[in-house]
């Protein structure tokens, strides 16, 4: 059988209409996530069987209120619906609206209707109708709108079969349903002239499509420059003012459908305050509100930080066991090393993040689904605005304290592109859990573990200081980016505050699964390549230096009567020194000398680009204690390190402090970099961020070392 193109249907509706629940009900776990072409707006696609023979593709579109978009997300809906040639242009639209707010949710429906795209109206949340005492006359609504209306519930799957039947029927009889029905909007004289001109010159059949093109020419990716000029000429000849026209259109549409709704829907008048009102009185209370929010964030932070530790330890132990098993069973040689130290190490580096990502997105999905997130955004919008961020940025910033990767992925909920970009750019400044081992090892070289002012541990204070420095760097650079970056998108809050409701577990589960899969598949590929590259750098050297060093070291070990473990550690250390990474470390030594670093630290800076905690492992190898995994052993060994030129300790207070500052600021995490690339749709911002953070790290460390050396 020839594989034919499946018919496409689009799920469209206002935000909070329960569109995603319906999508999950229709497609189950068979979802594919990609981006709409040219933009980083998530496109969810899935398949559903309408009946035994017919299978269709379902695309979930971003929620929007009208075809007059103000954000990148909303723009996608216009771009696809106003362009009949778009690859995503649907054969049929399933319009989803919440029966509780029908009077607010019909504007977009009437616009799509006027585009003459076949529609099936899925009237959602019907499971709540009885309890709330709402009465709807469905057949009458259907007749008056001229559209099939199917009452459904995305929450419990009520009446999905009827919806599928309706979709099936209307897909087959596309010709019949596109019969001319009375439009919801009567064009003004001026608009008639303009749309006639556009229909004629651009060969468009639908008047409303022409009107949308008149409104949005200049921002529609599917119009070529020639057509754009034509449209703009037609509009300026008529002196077309788009905003007043748009307002007039919206008014007229509401005036047309409001009387229809009055005829078909009966709602009881609410007198007592609802559960939502009672909860809001506490959850966004002037004092309790922020307090509860920080308590919740603290719990999330703890969850990512502490709870994720157990599965992370299992994953780590699993990979260690796997590596040693393979090393023992496979023949020794480069192929085994590549497999264990390159590929499997890379794989471990990817999988280790899964617990944190899964836990964060589980909790975030709960907050989103319950309706709490809108309240958090509302509370912090003002403060975040000052730094060019959005109320939603606070979630990313807080979770960045555990790990920047899930934090950056969580910024998808920020619809304003500039605010989202700034959040992505500054989140890695927040000290993440991977910095802790580095801080722990180095802090001891800077201050002793003494108690000051009665209760404060000096090391603890420095620890806190480093965290604060990260927060200051994040907010400070956000402010700078706010001043530099320009955007045409206007920033609105205008956020719906949905009623509180119990999360739908299916939605929560699918959200977690999506985030984890995206990370493993998309980021995983690049992380794997970089990991193998770093392995090559650390395991190979120019010429036969490595082989010679190995021989020389072996005889040295014999002379010094070292045992097997000590010999292996010494060889590993010497080999690292002559590897490409070692050469690189020595090569950059002049550049990092003003920061107080030697070539060994240079090597660690290079290898720890994989992830900050690799710093510890590299240092252990370099100091010939690779087989010991104790941070105490390493610290003792580092403390004993003497600079051969000066005779002073390498890890002086100033060098250690300078190194700490470096790790606070520098983007030493390839996984984060890859996720930034993925979320911003290209390497541009990832590279800018890498350089920006690197320069800040260099300058900060340089300043600290130079000032420290003078004192």
């Amino acid at each position: 059988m020839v594989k034919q193109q499946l018919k496409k249907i689009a799920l469209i509706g206002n935000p909070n209409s329960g569109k995603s629940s319906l999508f999950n009900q229709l497609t189950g776990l068979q979802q594919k996530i990609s981006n709409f072409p040219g933009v980083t707006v998530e496109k969810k696609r899935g398949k559903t069987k309408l009946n035994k023979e017919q299978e269709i593709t379902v695309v979930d579109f971003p929620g929007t209120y009208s075809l007059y978009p103000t954000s990148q997300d909303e723009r996608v809906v216009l771009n696809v619906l106003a362009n009949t040639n778009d690859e995503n242009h649907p054969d049929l639209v399933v319009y989803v609206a919440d029966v509780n707010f029908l009077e607010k949710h019909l504007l977009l429906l009437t616009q799509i209707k006027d585009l003459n795209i076949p529609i099936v109206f899925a009237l959602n949340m019907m499971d709540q109708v009885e309890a709330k005492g709402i009465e709807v006359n469905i057949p009458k609504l259907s007749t008056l709108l001229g559209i099939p209306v199917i009452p459904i519930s995305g929450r419990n799957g009520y009446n999905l079969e009827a919806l599928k039947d309706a979709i099936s029927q209307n897909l087959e009889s596309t010709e019949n349903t596109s019969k001319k029905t009375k439009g919801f909007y009567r064009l003004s004289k001026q608009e008639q002239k303009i749309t006639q001109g556009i229909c004629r010159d651009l060969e468009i059949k639908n008047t409303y499509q022409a009107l949308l093109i008149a409104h949005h020419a200049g921002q529609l990716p599917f119009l070529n420059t020639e057509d754009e000029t034509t449209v703009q000429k037609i509009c300026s000849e008529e002196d077309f003012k788009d905003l007043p026209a748009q307002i007039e259109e919206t008014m007229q549409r509401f005036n047309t459908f409001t009387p229809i709704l009055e005829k078909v829907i009966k709602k009881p008048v609410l007198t007592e305050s609802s559960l939502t009102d009672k909860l809001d009185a506490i959850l966004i209370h002037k004092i309790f509100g922020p307090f509860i929010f920080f308590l919740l964030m603290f719990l999330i932070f703890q969850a990512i930080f502490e709870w994720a530790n157990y599965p992370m330890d299992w994953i780590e132990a699993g990979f260690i066991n796997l590596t040693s098993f393979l090393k023992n069973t496979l023949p020794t040689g480069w192929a085994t090393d590549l497999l264990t130290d390159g590929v499997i190490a890379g794989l471990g580096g990817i999988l280790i993040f899964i617990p944190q990502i899964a836990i964060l997105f589980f909790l975030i999905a709960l907050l989103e689904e319950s309706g709490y997130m809108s309240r958090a955004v509302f509370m912090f919008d003002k403060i975040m605005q000052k730094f060019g961020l959005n109320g939603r940025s606070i979630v990313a910033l807080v979770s960045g304290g555990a790990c920047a990767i899930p934090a950056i992925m969580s910024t998808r909920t920020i619809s304003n592109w500039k605010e989202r970009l700034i959040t992505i750019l500054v989140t890695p400044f927040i000290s993440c859990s991977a910095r802790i081992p580095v801080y722990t090892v180095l802090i001891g070289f800077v201050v002793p573990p003494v108690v000051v002012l009665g209760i404060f541990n000096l090391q603890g204070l420095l620890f806190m200081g480093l965290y604060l420095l990260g927060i200051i760097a994040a907010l400070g650079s956000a402010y700078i980016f706010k001043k530099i970056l320009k955007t045409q998108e206007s920033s609105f809050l205008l956020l719906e505050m949905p009623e509180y409701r119990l999360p739908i577990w299916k939605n929560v589960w699918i959200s977690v699964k999506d985030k984890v899969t995206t990370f493993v598949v998309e980021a995983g590929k690049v992380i794997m390549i970089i990991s193998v590259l770093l392995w090559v750098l650390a395991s190979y050297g120019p010429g036969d230096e490595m082989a010679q060093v190995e021989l020389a070291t072996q005889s040295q070990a014999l002379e010094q009567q070292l045992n097997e473990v000590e010999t292996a550690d010494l060889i590993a250390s010497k080999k690292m020194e002559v590897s490409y990474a070692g050469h690189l470390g020595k090569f950059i030594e002049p550049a990092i000398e003003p920061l107080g670093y030697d070539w060994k630290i240079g090597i660690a800076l290079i290898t720890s680009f994989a992830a900050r905690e690799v710093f510890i492992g590299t240092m252990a190898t370099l100091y010939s204690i690779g087989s010991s995994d104790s941070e105490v052993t390493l610290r003792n060994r580092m403390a004993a390190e003497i600079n051969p030129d000066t005779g002073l300790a390498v890890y002086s207070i100033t060098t250690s402090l300078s190194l700490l500052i470096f790790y606070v600021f520098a983007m030493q995490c390839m996984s984060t970099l890859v996720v930034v690339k993925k979320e911003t749709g290209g390497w541009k911002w990832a590279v800018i961020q890498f350089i920006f953070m690197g320069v800040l790290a260099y300058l900060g460390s340089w300043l600290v070392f130079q000032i420290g050396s003078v004192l």
Partner: protein
Amino acid sequence: MDQKSTNSNLASHLLSERESGIVNSFTDERIASKLMAMGVLPGSKIEIIRIAPFGGGFYIKVDGHGLAIRKKEAEAIVLEM
């Protein structure tokens, strides 16, 4: 704008919570278009539920439907006296 004497914009009597009124018109077309798409129309009953903890934002109900708006956006709404 001779209506100014009979109308007042939302922000001007937002200082106390639990204010309510009927939307008359808007002073900013761009904000108006966005508000209207969300169902805030001339004639809508609007009620201030509370002010954001750190200021700058209003939690309002429009015909019983919850909405969060910034001060700038609230200032564009003209109420009937």
